[in-house]
């Protein structure tokens, strides 16, 4: 109930709308979104239809979401985030990937920000390879590109106070996973293009 109210309040204050067509398909899925703000995970999570949202877990930086009581509550109780320590991720340790795979196998959808870090200028940076490994290990996953608009203006990197501007989450058609002959870099570029395309309209 509290999670529903939270999602409703986020939609009310940011003007983001749910995408009802996302509720239907029964495959597990990963949302791939651009990253420009700490609000990204919260807003994208709120835009997913209720039934689907309960099983959706954002993958987020542990350093940020474990700081302070409110953030900790949000991350663990509200959207049940998979927290990945940043320095581990940088070391390409196998651990974070295992964590995500385990969550998928337990029936979760994931929200992923493949750039790995927030962009400063609103542009979309190169995608990191985690998504490639996930998608090649679980080929049945649906990969949905998402473009989050204006969140970099609402709460940019380095600011504490969000502005009450209007945000938008645009969901694209699923892209196909990497086929065995496709080089990693090609797949990552293809996934990134799918998000960039959504930003154009």
């Amino acid at each position, binding site marked *: 109930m509290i999670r529903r109210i939270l999602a409703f309040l986020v939609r009310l204050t940011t*003007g983001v709308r749910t995408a009802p067509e996302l509720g239907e398909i029964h495959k597990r899925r990963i949302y791939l979104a651009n990253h420009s703000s700490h609000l990204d995970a919260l807003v994208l999570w709120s835009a997913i239809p209720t039934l689907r949202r309960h099983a959706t877990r954002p993958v987020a930086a542990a350093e940020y979401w474990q700081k302070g009581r409110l953030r900790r509550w949000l991350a663990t109780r509200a959207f049940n985030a998979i927290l990945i320590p940043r320095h581990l991720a940088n070391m390409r340790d196998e651990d974070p990937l295992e964590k995500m795979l385990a969550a998928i196998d337990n029936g979760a959808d994931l929200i992923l920000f493949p750039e790995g870090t927030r962009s*400063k200028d609103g542009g979309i940076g190169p995608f990191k390879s985690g998504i490639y490994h996930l998608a090649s290990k679980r080929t049945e996953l649906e990969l949905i590109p998402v473009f989050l608009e*204006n969140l970099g*203006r609402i709460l*940019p990197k380095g*600011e504490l*106070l969000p*502005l*009450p*501007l*209007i945000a938008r989450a645009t969901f694209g058609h699923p892209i196909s996973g990497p086929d065995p002959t496709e080089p990693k870099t090609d797949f990552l570029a293809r996934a990134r293009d799918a998000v960039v395309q959504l930003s154009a309209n």
Partner: protein
Amino acid sequence: MHDPELLYLIGGVVALLLIASITTRMLIQKNGETPVLGNLRQRVRAWWWMTLVFASSISMGRDGVFGFYLLLSFLALREFITLSPTPRGDHRTLAWVFFVFVPIHYLFAWAPWYGMFLIWIPVYAFVFIPIRSALSGDTDRFLERSSRIQWGVLICVYFLSHLPMMLYLPIAGYEGQNAKLLFFVVFVTQISDVMQYLFGKLFGKTPIAPSVSPSKTREGLLYGGTAAILIGTLLWWATPFSPVAAAAMSALLVAVGFFGGLVMSAVKRSLGAKDWSQGIPGHGGVLDRLDSLLFAAPVFFHITGYYFGTQMAAAYSQPVWIKRLLEW
């Protein structure tokens, strides 16, 4: 504000909306749901909601009215800034504007402290905005950025806040009835929009400024404007005006309202958008609905004040509680 005349006025709007709803339904049954009729139905439905919100704000008295316009200003400014590409360097400036300058302006308006209501935004906010942006160190297109924020605040907050200020105009023989004056401004301006839209759809041929707003036609303005002036004149009994003065003030609202809409369309075009947002189904954003009121509100307010010789500044000098607060 339990004024029977106010109830008649609201009742009249409800009757108009009933006619609009029934006509729309009959048109759709006859012609099927064309895009124009679908949009018309959405618009009428949104009008029901807007009437409900407007009427309930008035029924809540002074606090309800000021709270309502504070919210409207906030929503309008948010649409304005969302469409204007403000860079990182303006983040803190905008946070100050949204969370400090806008509420304080409405505090002065509500108090009321007329002098500060008049100068808080054109002097203090306008001085603060470029200072804070300069402190951020970003000089890229500095003048354009500062003016954009200043303009947004002026239009969405300062101009709009003249609507609730109608409640305070001290007009001899009209005490306690000012809510009807507020109704008159909003109703005549909006009915002028509606009439221009209707007559424009029916007889519109010659666009007035095709590159700015193709839907504004000479025929729509002429017939729709005349209809709105007639309606406004017929409402003279609810205003402090004589029938002739009511006609003149209605004409003023139609003219200034038209130009307000035209200018806001031009601003919208220059920002590369068709609608300010998708907040109100069928209408676009809050600003799409308010655009004609933005210019009309302050012009009507000051001309009415001048016409009746209201001494606003003397009637509403610094309230005692603010004086005490500041001495402390």
